[in-house]
């Protein structure tokens, strides 16, 4: 319990440098949004955001000198990741099976793409000609 009892005091100069870094990364992320990395666009945006987040957490929130609370914070992020990844186990491997008695495909809203539905009778995606 004595680790942060020493109360590290970081000076304004460090904080100003961190602010500079944050503003720089903000410019970079806006700039990057005009570039096209294909499917990596979101990854790049999240990566830059995470760098900014790390700066805020480590310096402004003093996690640099506060390992114990850093572990607690990371636990929160870890369980959020578990929530996302375990849900994706389902979402990414699910095929929409339409009821056999369905006359027309489910239309979420006019013109919306369907989520890869499959006709259980043929195993073919909906839209391919129905073999008679």
């Amino acid at each position, binding site marked *: 319990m004595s680790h942060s009892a020493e109360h590290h005091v970081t000076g304004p100069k460090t904080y100003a440098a961190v602010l500079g870094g944050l503003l720089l990364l903000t410019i970079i992320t806006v700039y990057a949004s005009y570039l096209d990395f294909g499917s990596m666009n979101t990854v790049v945006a999240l990566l830059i955001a995470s760098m900014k987040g790390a700066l805020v957490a480590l310096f402004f929130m003093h996690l640099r000198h506060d390992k114990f609370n850093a572990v607690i914070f990371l636990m929160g992020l870890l369980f959020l990741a578990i929530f996302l990844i375990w849900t*994706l186990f389902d979402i990414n491997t699910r095929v929409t099976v339409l009821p056999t008695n369905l006359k027309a495909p489910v239309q979420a809203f006019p013109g919306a793409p369907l989520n890869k539905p499959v006709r259980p009778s043929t195993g073919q995606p909906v839209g391919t000609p129905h073999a008679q």
Partner: protein
Amino acid sequence: MTTATHTGHAGDGNSKFLQHHFREMGQQFEAAKLGMWLFLVTEVLLFGGLFVGYGIMHARHPEAFMAAHHHLDKVMGAVNTVVLLISSFTMVLAVWAAQTSRRTLCILFLILTLLCAGVFLVVKYFEYSHKFHDGLLPGKYYTHQGDTVPGQFMFFSFYFMMTGLHGIHVLIGMIAILWILVRAIRGDFSSQYYSPVDITGLYWHLVDLIWIYVFPLMYLIS
């Protein structure tokens, strides 16, 4: 762990802010900070749930989300990002001023933080009123005309839920900072006792942290 301060009564070498069930100020400070971090974890998971829902719906309707985000004003979003980052900076300086017993500076930085928060909300107000005017509203209230890509209402569902919940947090943060400001003016804080400033700062940085993710996910989809 020393045994010198077991009685834990106010006035025996400890600050008058020591509560009766703590043995010494260090213990009380640790507890307060730990409590705040635990609360921040709950905030991360609260917003996290929204982010997960947003991510999954985005992956389901990429064209709709892509088309819808063009209605957002990147400049206003970027300005608000900068304003919040600066407010985080002034907040951490207020903590520093409290840590080093600089009362006047602490008050000054707290006021600056409040000002930044106010600017953020004003910009947000203009953004919202623009969306209201154009009928870019969540769910069944979406009335925007002339969309070529259907389903954009869902993007605005998330836009209003995420920025709205974030905005509520900004308001709560402002109230907390106001309370800290009153106590700072009263002269409560010094290098011996500054944990309310510290934990309010933590809360405010988290509000900033969440915006850091909202900004690229909402305004900068490409």
